[in-house]
């Protein structure tokens, strides 16, 4: 379909596939020759995932984007937690849900597991019948909270502050695991007072030596061991030489004051004593202490959802939560772990880059700056075309007006989808794609601990084509057809059969076709054995230098988070400028009947589903003259949404909670995307969907 009226006017003309493909190819060729390869951009989401599906920039469309060296618009969603975890652990924290059967305590952080990740609920319920205690930390009384043995309601955005307080309590009461801290973290490393860096043997006059060649850089690794205080010899020693490193020592070496990393961490933690932060975190002291004690009871899994990381302090949330498990030593064993329930499985990545060229990631949160300046990392970077697949940014990303600002400046926009979404509405050309049930694919989603085949049930209906076939047609006309003349079967075989992880477990496409689902081996516990792939194999309780997730020339301080410390959210915090004007914290929850905006037209689900609404504690509502079930306007500087108010005692006073995933036309006016913020935290470069201040008032329709 092609647009014939103004963009967004809803005037369309049906065209043939031949015309659609040649229109796109001609435009793309012109832009590439005039403005460079980066002038074509690609935005993907998680609307269709698999090996052939384009979500996560996989499939033949992902391959095309790499071959043609597109600008890949990084969607900046749900990535902050892993950034902070990475600072501490040099890896991602991913755990198979089957870990719960070994957990004595499961603590849910920002995770309404039974609503957002249903498939994980039964294993948790099974574990609870066998004695696992479930604890939920959530401002609101979520379904998971209602199923829990203990529910702690805290102020939105205060999770890192609460965690720091738990650490302080545990250490003050001598409940920390000293052997683990010495053996598996850098807590015993000495830190220089002059520059905050970890003291190394070269500082003591010992020349660094060369280690094995790093396969990524081709250069030898430099070995310059960190230094600890060895109580055995009462001297400074390399960490791997000392026989009795200590956690507590301050020492002046040639006029330079040195402290153990642990002492520096403990000193910082004194700011977070329960009595000091109880009011700010909104949790009574006795509950903070109770939660701290729970953290020391056997195998604890601090299991995270996506809410706690959706604030400006989202990366720090990941950092401090891992640190909590480090100080209790509840990490690296089945059931004793931290992070999301997620089973990662790598496929053969080379399939996506047949020419060795790749796309370039430009964060969506910085896209308006790139459009304003025409530059990215100092280079000219005009973007003229956009291809959207498996995504609906207009109603699912943050800051509608911000999105529209860069969207409207792109000359030619193609959206491939199977529903008429808000993003389709603002396209120039629309391609109807086949449903997941109309093509064979292999699913390795982390949402379950197995790999499964998704069989083709029927031929694509009407004029729909699969994403793979669209990529093949485009490739031929763009002169790169030689890399796309492979069948789906050949693509899947290469992607799966040649993946090292699949080979290790003898997983092949043929086996998948026969057995349908194959369970992955092992419990899939993060940081197994307490090993961290850092320079020393120890976790960074002290984060000497940190890097942002994506460096696009933004200002950031690599030393800001050396010791775990609290940074307030951007908006959703009592001392913020925004909250002085808009005193309510606006949060979202999942709608049971949709996967983002997928299935929005499904009438069966609509019958049990709701309409757009906002849940509000009756205390806040009555104060504002709002009645149950009436229309209200939720608003801030960026925009508004007019929806029905639902009185709910589940909601913490001061909070507004909205089930998300609506299309624009379903609102009385505005939409949730108008209110959310695209403020980019310079280190996490992640969308802070929950870090939003707003207010609410009765809606009076203008005459």
């Amino acid at each position: 379909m092609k647009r014939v009226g103004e963009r967004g006017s809803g005037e369309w003309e049906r065209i043939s596939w031949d015309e659609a493909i040649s229109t796109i190819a001609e435009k793309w060729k012109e832009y590439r020759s005039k403005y460079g390869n980066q002038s074509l951009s690609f935005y993907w989401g998680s609307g269709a995932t698999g090996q052939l599906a384009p979500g996560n920039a996989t499939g033949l469309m992902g391959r095309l984007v790499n071959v043609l060296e597109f600008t890949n618009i990084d969607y900046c969603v749900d990535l902050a937690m892993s950034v902070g975890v990475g600072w501490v652990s040099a890896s991602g924290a991913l755990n198979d849900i089957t870990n719960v059967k070994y957990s004595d305590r499961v603590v849910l952080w920002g995770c309404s597991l039974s609503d957002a990740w249903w498939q994980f609920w039964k294993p948790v319920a099974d574990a609870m019948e066998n004695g696992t205690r479930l604890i939920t930390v959530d401002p609101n009384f979520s379904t998971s909270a209602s199923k829990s043995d203990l529910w702690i309601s805290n102020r939105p955005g205060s999770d890192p502050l609460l965690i720091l307080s738990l650490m302080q309590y545990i250490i003050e009461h001598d409940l920390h695991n000293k052997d683990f801290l010495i053996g598996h973290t850098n807590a015993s490393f000495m830190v220089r007072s002059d520059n905050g860096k970890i003291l190394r043997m070269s500082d003591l006059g010992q020349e660094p030596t060369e280690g094995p060649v790093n396969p990524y850089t081709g250069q030898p690794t430099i070995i310059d061991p960190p230094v600890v205080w060895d109580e055995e010899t009462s001297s400074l020693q390399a960490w791997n030489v000392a026989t009795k490193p200590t956690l507590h020592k301050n020492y002046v070496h040639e006029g330079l004051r040195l402290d153990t990393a642990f002492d520096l961490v403990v000193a910082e933690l004194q700011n977070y004593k329960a009595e000091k932060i109880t009011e700010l975190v909104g949790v009574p002291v006795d509950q903070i202490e109770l939660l701290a004690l729970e953290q020391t009871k056997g195998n604890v899994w601090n299991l995270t959802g996506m809410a706690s990381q959706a604030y400006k302090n989202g990366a720090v949330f990941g950092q401090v939560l891992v640190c909590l498990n480090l100080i209790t030593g509840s990490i690296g064993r089945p059931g004793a772990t931290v992070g999301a329930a997620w089973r990662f499985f790598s496929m053969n990545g080379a399939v996506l880059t047949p020419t060795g060229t790749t796309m370039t990631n430009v964060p969506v949160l910085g896209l308006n700056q790139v459009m304003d300046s025409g530059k990215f990392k100092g280079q000219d970077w005009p973007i003229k075309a956009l291809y959207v697949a498996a995504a609906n940014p207009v109603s699912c990303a943050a800051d509608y007006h911000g999105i529209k600002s860069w969207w409207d400046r792109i000359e030619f926009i193609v959206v491939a989808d199977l529903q008429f979404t808000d993003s389709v509405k603002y396209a120039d050309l629309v391609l109807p794609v086949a449903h997941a049930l109309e093509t064979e694919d292999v699913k390795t989603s982390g949402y379950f601990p197995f790999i499964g085949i998704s069989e083709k049930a029927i031929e694509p209906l009407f004029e729909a084509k699969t994403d793979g076939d669209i990529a093949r047609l485009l490739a031929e006309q763009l002169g790169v057809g030689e890399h796309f003349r492979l069948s789906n079967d050949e693509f899947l075989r290469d992607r799966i059969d040649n993946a090292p992880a699949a080979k290790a477990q003898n997983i092949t496409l043929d086996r998948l076709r026969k057995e349908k689902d194959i369970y992955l081996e092992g419990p899939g516990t993060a940081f197994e054995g307490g090993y961290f792939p850092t320079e020393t194999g120890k976790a960074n309780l002290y984060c000497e230098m940190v890097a942002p997730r994506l460096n696009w020339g933004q200002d950031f301080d690599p030393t800001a988070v050396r010791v775990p410390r609290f940074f307030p959210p951007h908006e959703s915090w009592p001392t913020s400028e925004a909250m002085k004007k808009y005193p309510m914290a606006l949060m979202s929850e999942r709608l049971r009947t949709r996967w983002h905006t997928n299935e929005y037209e499904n009438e069966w689900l609509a019958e049990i589903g709701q309409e757009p609404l906002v849940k509000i504690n009756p205390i806040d509502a009555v104060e504002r003259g709002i009645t149950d079930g009436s229309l209200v306007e939720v608003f801030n500087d960026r925009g508004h949404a007019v929806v029905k108010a639902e009185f709910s005692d589940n909601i913490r006073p001061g909070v507004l909670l909205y089930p998300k995933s609506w299309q624009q036309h379903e609102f009385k006016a505005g939409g949730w995307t108008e209110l959310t913020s695209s403020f980019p935290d310079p280190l996490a470069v992640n969308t802070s969907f929950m870090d939003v201040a707003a207010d609410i008032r009765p809606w009076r329709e203008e005459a």
Partner: protein
Amino acid sequence: MAEKQYGLVVDTKRCVGCHSCSVACKIENNLSAGVIWNRILTNGGASMDSAKGTFPNLSKHYIPMICQHCANPACTKACPVGATYKDITTGAVRQDYDLCIGCRMCMAACPYTGVRSFNWEEPTYTMDFAVGDINVPKHQKHVVEKCTLCYHKLSKGEEPICIDACISGARVFGDLNDPDDKVVNLISKRKYIQLLPERGTNPSVYYLV
């Protein structure tokens, strides 16, 4: 007394109100637009996730609500034509659409409000073809309908679709008259409630609490 009395045990500690049973029932039985045989209520109020109490002293249980297939049903006694009757072999309370005259006496007699619905108009559907099981009786105008305990599946030795659809393992199906059955075992070990026991209907749906 029926030879068998099939029934359900629903574990409210496991049920998270996901509505999968509702949707599966809707599809399996090719229910028409606006008709839901299996609804999810809470102990707290009318909206989908209402809790009982005031913040932060709250509790919440989801209560999946279907025809209770009572051992001593009120509806069968009220039906003037025998269209609603107790099935001898399964203990299910059945509804014969061909016999039903649409008087809705059964709806008035049933203490479990909302488990039955009446088709005022010719049923309409989302899809232009029937979905679900081919053996499901065709829906008709001017008759009362409700959960059949998936009678079409029982006759093949299968369990109702809502059992398989439950994501939480919260629904268990079995014969309440068989002392060795898993449902009898469950209600002998766990605390349970039946809905409106004072009405003397002896419902066959047990809610573990």
